[in-house]
């Protein structure tokens, strides 16, 4: 970083959330769209924005960063930002927000020394601060009452960096981050799952290829040359398979097709002697995507699924606004269904509305639970039945129809939870699956329950 009037934006990722290395890498890749010069620290990133002609407003910048973070799966609600002309000052501004530097508490001493906070252990820090306090040094002002030479003698170059960062500004050269030239993804599996043919290996490689494509997509590059490394069970050198492309490629299916041809060709020439334990794909050469919309890529297929996703999101948002939760509190007239873990049939599912198509998981609870057969049709208001001997009389419209009972099976007793006072407290039902014969002689299956409290027989569902 050359010297000159700089403008550092510090993005503090908050200390609470745990961020894995890959996610951090992914975040840096997506921050590249703001500025090429990034200086990553421990749970914080500094962006040098002085050379960007059109700079976004800081709060808009934070919002867009939060959207990017959500796509990677990070919770960005607690992130903060600060702007200053040097990295240490930017960090102090983010953390302490103090105007007058001299009134900062003693803890700021270490923030000046090491804004990137690379070294993890902060035990020496705590002890140093405790002894400052017991010597009566409450804030930075006190530090300067004692002559500098005393501290220099005692603490050596550590105090020197503090002074330099505190007063003179930034002559220090910070190392900026470059996206790694060679992207690589690997997977490992135990020896028993022996992969013999190209198809089985390809099945293993597909997730790797997906991940690689999405990473390339975000940093706007295309693949030129690819190498597949297979590690075998026996201590024999790894098998390397090279793959070069005439055109730089980014689409998944095309890549898979080319991989399949290459693999089957390889396997036929010299088949696999023993099981593969680990496979790694390394992308040797990449090329910057052609200018213009950074998201354009040759293959149609991925384009279609991407475009289909856009249309779905647009349709759902339109339908949501038209038929979803209306302002006057009326229940939504358009919904998707999601299962919930509740005994009561009316509450066994709930109305949801998801923008992203794949977010609706078919059944909410991971533990698949076997339930007795449920009726397809569930009446909104259960109809009362009265039983006389082998006949069930059901009121439909003005007159009453008589159905002959064939059998009662599948007894199921469902009781409300006593602690669930407002919701389902105090109901007790014994359900049966009743097969009856309608007046016209046609067999029907009903879902009937006896309400223990009222002692009445109610029709609740039709199979």
């Amino acid at each position, binding site marked *: 970083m050359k010297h000159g009037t700089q403008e550092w934006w510090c993005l503090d990722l908050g200390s609470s959330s745990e961020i894995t290395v890959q996610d951090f890498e992914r975040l840096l890749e997506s921050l590249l769209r703001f500025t090429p010069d990034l200086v990553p620290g421990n749970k914080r990133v500094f962006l040098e924005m002085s050379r960007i002609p059109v700079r976004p407003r800081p709060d808009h910048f934070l919002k867009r960063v939060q959207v990017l973070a959500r796509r990677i799966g990070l919770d960005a609600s607690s992130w903060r930002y600060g702007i200053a002309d040097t990295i240490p000052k930017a960090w102090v501004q983010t953390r302490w927000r103090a105007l007058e530097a001299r009134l900062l508490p003693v803890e700021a001493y270490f923030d000046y020394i090491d804004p990137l906070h690379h070294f993890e252990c902060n035990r020496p820090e705590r*002890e140093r601060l405790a*002894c400052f306090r*017991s*010597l*009566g040094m409450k804030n930075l002002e006190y530090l300067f009452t*004692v*002559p500098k*030479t*005393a501290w220099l*003698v*005692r*603490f*050596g170059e550590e105090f020197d960096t503090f002074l330099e960062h505190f007063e003179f500004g930034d002559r220090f050269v910070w190392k900026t981050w470059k996206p790694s030239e060679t992207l690589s993804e690997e997977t490992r599996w135990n020896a028993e799952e022996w992969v013999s043919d190209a198809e089985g290996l390809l099945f293993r490689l597909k997730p790797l290829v997906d991940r690689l494509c999405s990473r390339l997509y975000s940093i706007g590059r295309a693949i030129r040359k690819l190498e597949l490394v297979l590690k075998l069970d026996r201590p024999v050198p790894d098998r390397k398979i090279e793959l070069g492309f005439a055109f730089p490629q980014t689409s998944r299916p095309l890549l898979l097709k080319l991989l399949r041809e290459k693999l089957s060709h390889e396997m036929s020439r010299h088949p696999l002697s023993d099981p593969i334990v680990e496979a790694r794909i390394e992308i040797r050469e990449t090329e910057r995507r052609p200018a213009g919309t950074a998201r354009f890529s040759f293959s149609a297929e991925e384009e279609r699924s991407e475009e289909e996703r856009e249309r779905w999101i647009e349709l759902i948002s339109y339908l949501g606004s038209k038929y979803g939760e209306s302002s006057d509190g009326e229940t939504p007239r358009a919904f998707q269904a999601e299962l*919930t*873990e*509740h*005994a009561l049939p009316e509450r066994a599912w709930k109305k949801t509305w998801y923008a992203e198509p794949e977010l609706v998981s078919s059944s909410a*609870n991971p*533990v*698949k*639970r*076997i*339930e*007795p057969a449920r009726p397809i049709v569930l009446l909104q208001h259960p109809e009362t039945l009265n039983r006389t001997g082998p006949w069930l009389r059901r009121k439909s419209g003005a007159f009453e129809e008589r159905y002959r009972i064939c059998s009662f*099976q*599948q*007894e*199921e*007793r*469902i*009781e409300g*939870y*006593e*602690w*669930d*006072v*407002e919701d389902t*407290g105090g109901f007790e039902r*014994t*359900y049966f699956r009743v097969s009856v014969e309608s007046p016209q002689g046609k067999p029907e299956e009903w879902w009937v329950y006896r309400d223990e409290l009222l002692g009445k027989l109610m029709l609740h569902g039709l199979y």
Partner: protein
Amino acid sequence: MDYTELKSWSYYSFLRGASPPAELIRTAVRLGLRGLALTDVGGVYGLPKAYQALREAGVPDFRLISGSEILLKDAPGLSISLLAPNRLAYGAMCRLLTRSHAGEAKGTGALSTQELVRGLSEIPGGSELLLFPEWQERFFQERDASRLLLDWEPLRVLQNPLYLPLRRSLDGLDAERSACARQLSQELGAPITAVQGVCFAERKDRLLQDVLTSVREGAPLKELGFRLARNSERVLKSGAEMARLFSDLPDALTRTMEVRERCAFSLSELRYRYPNEWIPKPHSAESWLRTLCEAGIKERYPEGESPAVRKQLEHELKLIRELSYADYFLTVQDIVDFAKKRGILCQGRGSAANSVVCFVLGITAIDPVRMNLLFERFISAERGEPPDIDVDFEHERREEVIQYLYQKYGRDRAAMVSAVVTYRSRSAIREVAKAFSLPVGTLSARKVQNELIQSPDLPEKKREKILEVVERLEGFPRHLSIHSGGFTLSSEPLDTLVPIEPATMEGRTIIQWDKYDLDILGLLKIDVLALGMLTAIQKCLEFTGRKLHQIPAEDRATYDMICRADTIGVFQIESRAQMSMLPRLRPRTFYDLVVEVALVRPGPIVGNMVHPYLKRRRGEEPVWLPDPRLVPILGRTYGVPIFQEQVMRMAVTLAGFTPGEADRLRKAIGAWRAEGSIGEMGRKLQAGLRRAGIPDAFAARIFEQIQGFSEYGFPESHAASFALLTYVSSYFKCHHPAEFLCALLNSQPMGFYSPHSLVDDAKRHGVEVLPVSVTESEWDSTLDGVKTLRLGLRFVKGLSEAGARSLIEARRKRAFLSFQDVVNRSDLGLKDLRALARSDAFASLGISLREALFRVLTLHDGLFSQEGVQVELFPSTLLPRMSAEEAVIQDYDATGLSARGHPMKFLRDRLRRHPRLRRHANLTTAEAKTFRHGTEITIPGLSVVLQRPPTAKGTAFATIEDESGILDLILHREVFEKCRDTIRDEAFLLVRGVLQRDREAVQVVVKGIAPIFSDLELPVAPGAHARR
């Protein structure tokens, strides 16, 4: 239709079952069942209590089957429940359970499949255990749950009788499950039996079981979903209901009766003997006991025992031979003998002090005949309960005794008794609130109660439900912990009697039953307890070079000190209530001390015996005894019955009770207070007294007083053994204050007051206390002359004992000359050096605290040059000077006490500078004690003690302290509620109230309390305060 339930969980399956074992039995009997198998998870915790409930119900043909359920490590969801048909199989089951708990974290006992197979086949009797594999839990997850059971290989290997349990849980899948069961039963050759797997006794308990499941899963009720049962079918059901449910499989019900016939084992078959293999061969237990008694008598009564003693001894030995408790006494004597040989001070207490045999064997130190004590209180033929001897040891050396027991009898024959930790309202409130998804976070129980549960936006019905659950959850067991000292020993391995579990504490193993279970089954227990005061007295004896019996009895100066209530640090009579009673009671003899120790208890206060006793003692009230025979009994306590023995003796002499009946009366009195009904024994006593001509008024007075002390009342023998320690510690405080303080400081933590109160009190008695110093201090505090004491290095927070030892070692070779000398010669770590610097230990080398700390910094960076001479580049005088007050605060911070003076002394000059508080700055507690009764005062002080005894109906007692002494405060309920947080969190208080004087006892009834430091700024409040 006859039916026996073969699988049930009581609330001793921690967080699974929802009913106490006794309630399960009572409900089963009411429903007309023919038997119940109690199969708690991982143990037989609830069996004794179920056995007792069955004995009380008195139903002959109802059979309690002992069993338990074992979880499997490597087959989650599959568990095995075992039933014990006979005594041998029961022993095998207990041993298997012990193995399942060995080496496991508490409460998660589980076996692997090989361990189970090896256990069932190797342990004698293991192959007779009935097996009930529990396969139905997994049925909800996957269809082929039966496959799981089929290829579970132990079923092939074991020849145990195997039964296939089938449950009708009315969840719509019963038909499929029955079909699957039929197919399984053919393949395994195991007959199908109807087993409901009961979790609670009544359907209304399902609510409790849901809350317990929520606590176990750690998720609020709303998020539990399918982990909650959808109906309350896992409840005890009558034979008729089971017949309806199993109408298609009637033989499943008849098979349960088959199993009932097969399991004939009952807990009454459990017999066990105390270890006696170490008794010298020719002697039997009884004869060896007699020889020891004869030897003991010569030692206790050198000049020959009185005929009364001999008669009492013979009577006791005969009774012991009848009830065959000889080897119990010998075991206790062996322990006390070991302690005496190792020089550990010990003393028996409790009801044991009534027995001459114990006195003669050296277990207790009170001569029961001289004190006219009652042996029946200890052992009586009718009572049938085993004796319970408690022995106190020095708290620092008790571990040696315990390890001696483990080493002598072996880990499989000696184990400690467990104590069940139950839910009290405090812990129950937090758990239940979390279950009802209230935002509890880290709020204290009181805040949860006031802010969350009583908050207006919580719907009324939900609040009722929460409170109902909290109230029902109290008393439920949470986990097992160690009884304070209870030990059981047995001649044959203990784990065939009851499973043994590791306790959380290192090196300790506990049995699964608590002390009440042992009483129910008539098993014997010894209490090995720790008492801090014994350690202190032992150290005093070493300092003064005396023996315990060389202490002169009835020393005038000691009693004068006690009457002045100057008893801070003395055993038993240093608490607030005692110190306010001493000036009024003015004990002059040893028996007065016994009464003082027994009188200031909740029992006598509730039975309002305190005031009549005081008035009669001072002669303000005539002592009137209607019957001359009462004089020897109540004469010594001026006609007021204080001890249980007095009531028993009254019953014996006047109402014609036998000694055994008198002891049952004592137990009835306990129940009387609880159930409020007079009970049959009470009516018999009333009739007896009326027959003896005692006027009804006097009898009524007696009953009212008896009602008070039944539970809390002290037995006279117990009070006597404690009074002995009280007298000895008072004697040392009076004549050897320095030694007494040194002993107390070296056996911390103990007692009622914190070290800094003890030091201030000793200073007021002319003891000079020198601060911690590198050049003089040892690890313990030491005496530097007649009345000077040097604080030990043990008070320096953060200083490791190894570091201190190396410092002392280096100093013994050559005295330290300078700071550098200390650093070079003693290999102290930087942490230790910094701790020493912060406690100003280098003052004796002429280095101020901050300078020392500053120098330690240089060591940190190793800046001094090679040849070890420190480069003096910077004069440390430029550091900001430390004011006297900051020094005291630093002392408290570093060592928890300060030799320089009391912080109040420095606080007063701050107060003098404060505009509003200036006029109250100068009042000291000593001065306040001279004011008249009823004067309004406002006095500053350091809050030292805060107590709210439950029997005081909301009033709280506190004490404030300053450099001149301490002053007692009384806060009535409404005053306490107003300033509860201030008095608990603030250290320095400004107290406004009215002075109350009763002769020399002075107290302040508080009107209001203000924290002093809301205006002034004191960075670190002195840490060491006795809050409760």
